[in-house]
């Protein structure tokens, strides 16, 4: 959080300040929507290393962070990305090669872990996962957990219901809270203090933000504070949680940003195709990530026609009739 300092800054400054080597990070969005891709690419350009990442289903973004070699540890529910990559490709190869320490959860469990972090309690209870390998198989050993104060004691704990005759549950799964060092989300509208209005689905973004020590907001538009405050009930994130605000139009590209633009099916397929081969993927990175100075340059490289194709229709909020084959 940050109450008083100036919050509007450039993306390279925000990433430089808050994403430090070895820090614990989470990003907003879900598979093909509202991944903070401009920020992800900037993290890759700044060659951040040994990040520990928490993800539910942050397909597009997490796969690039893996591909860019930024992650050493990953707690995740789902490494897939719609049609372009039923299993995220760099994720798949990193795990098959043993290049990444990882641990599996379910989407609800990850959401609950962020929720617990936002609420300031050590765990949340659920009935999901009883009898499964998600409960039984740990990615981080007990020894490793004992040595690292940034890891919870256990992956998961099962307890008998302390209210045996209540809730029709004999036992429950407890999942430990997550409090990332930094969370980055991309939203449609924010003011210069960081109050955010997300349009469409919010996924787990608000809890991820509230659970996090530092928060970077990238946004399509910086709008007047008074405008957002005409309908405070539609602002999911009040400024007190936010450290930095960065204006990045098309900041979720090539994922979608509801009411602004659709995902880019061509680009997502292109990345997937290149991601399947190490050399090709390096070429992709050299051209689209390292080869551009910033997100604006990437957009120039994509070209106006490509962006026009994914421009959102006013009525539906997506690019009606977009060729998605």
């Amino acid at each position: 959080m940050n109450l008083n300092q100036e919050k509007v800054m450039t993306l390279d400054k925000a990433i430089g300040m808050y994403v430090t080597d070895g820090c614990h990070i989470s990003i907003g969005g879900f598979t093909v929507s509202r991944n903070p891709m401009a920020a992800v690419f900037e993290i890759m350009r700044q060659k951040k290393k040994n990040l520990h990442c928490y993800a539910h289903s942050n397909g597009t973004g997490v796969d690039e962070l893996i591909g860019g070699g930024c992650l050493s540890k990953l707690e995740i529910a789902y490494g897939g990305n719609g049609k372009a990559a039923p299993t995220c490709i760099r994720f798949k190869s990193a795990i098959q090669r043993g290049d990444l320490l990882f641990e599996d959860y379910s989407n609800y469990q990850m959401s609950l872990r962020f929720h617990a972090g936002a609420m300031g309690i050590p765990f949340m209870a659920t009935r999901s996962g009883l009898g499964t390998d998600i409960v039984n198989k740990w990615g981080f050993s007990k020894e490793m957990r004992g040595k690292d104060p940034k890891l919870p004691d256990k992956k998961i704990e099962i307890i008998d219901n302390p209210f045996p005759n209540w809730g029709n549950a004999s036992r429950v799964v407890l999942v430990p809270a997550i409090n990332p060092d930094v969370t980055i989300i991309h939203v449609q509208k924010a003011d210069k203090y960081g109050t955010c209005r997300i349009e469409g689905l919010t996924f787990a973004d608000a809890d991820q933000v509230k659970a996090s020590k530092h928060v970077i907001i990238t946004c399509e538009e910086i709008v007047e504070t008074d405008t957002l405050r005409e309908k405070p009930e539609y602002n999911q994130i009040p400024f007190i949680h936010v450290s930095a605000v960065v204006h990045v139009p098309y900041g979720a590209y090539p994922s979608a940003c509801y009411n602004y633009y659709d995902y880019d099916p061509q680009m997502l397929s292109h990345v997937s195709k290149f991601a399947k081969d190490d050399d090709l993927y390096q070429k992709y990175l050299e051209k689209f990530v390292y080869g551009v100075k910033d997100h604006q340059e990437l957009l120039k490289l994509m070209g106006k026609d490509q962006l026009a194709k994914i421009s959102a229709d006013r009525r539906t909020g997506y690019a009606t009739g977009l060729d998605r084959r």
Partner: protein
Amino acid sequence: MTEYTLKELMTLMAAREIRDGDIVFCGTGISMVAAMAAKYINAPNSIIFFETGAIDSKLEEIPMAVADPRVMFGAASNSGLLDAFATMQNRITGDHVIGILGAAQVDKYGNLNSTCIGDYSKPKTRFSGSGGACDVASFVPRCLIFMQHEKRKFPIKIDYLTSPGYLDGPGARERAGLMSGGPTAVITNLGVMYFDSETKEMYLAYYYPGVTPQKILDNMEFSVDISRAAEAAPPSEQELQILRERVDPYKLIL
């Protein structure tokens, strides 16, 4: 009779399992097409909802992911994951939900693996992982499972238990602390399997026209009871028309 693909029949077999008034938890791909088809054909008052928090979306185009902006349009409400899963975990709404899942492997008790083949920490093949599948399988009373009918996908023992079916048999869900319920049907490109109410083991309920029960057995590592099997009704003209013209006119999935 009109020609049809096995994928079309699979979709319709699933659609036929959806009852009017069901709340349908929907994934991507064929499961979304099945849920959409059911609304047009046999369950007009069923409601499609997504783990991302969209409920009863106006699906003018097929979403390619559960976070596709197409699920956000015209919904009754757009919230987030926390609300969506609560709707399934609480018994008031959860008991009305039917889930549709896919997986890399299924065993005879309907337990699913969508995580990996081989050793967990350094697998031979890694898949996407649970996503919301483990949650849905843990919470809801009825589940449909889409599978390709191949031997390696119906193993004696799955490599990783991602989503609970009947675990190791009768009473096992309850002993583990799960809600009762469990998988209803496994729908493949060759037929449909149900689960015996006593043994909780998979048995063959339907084989598709042109497919023999033996062919189905040949495509599984474990054996199932085929004594109750009947030939499935082929798609009707009307069903095919809805599928092709209204649900997936651009052949994005089918």
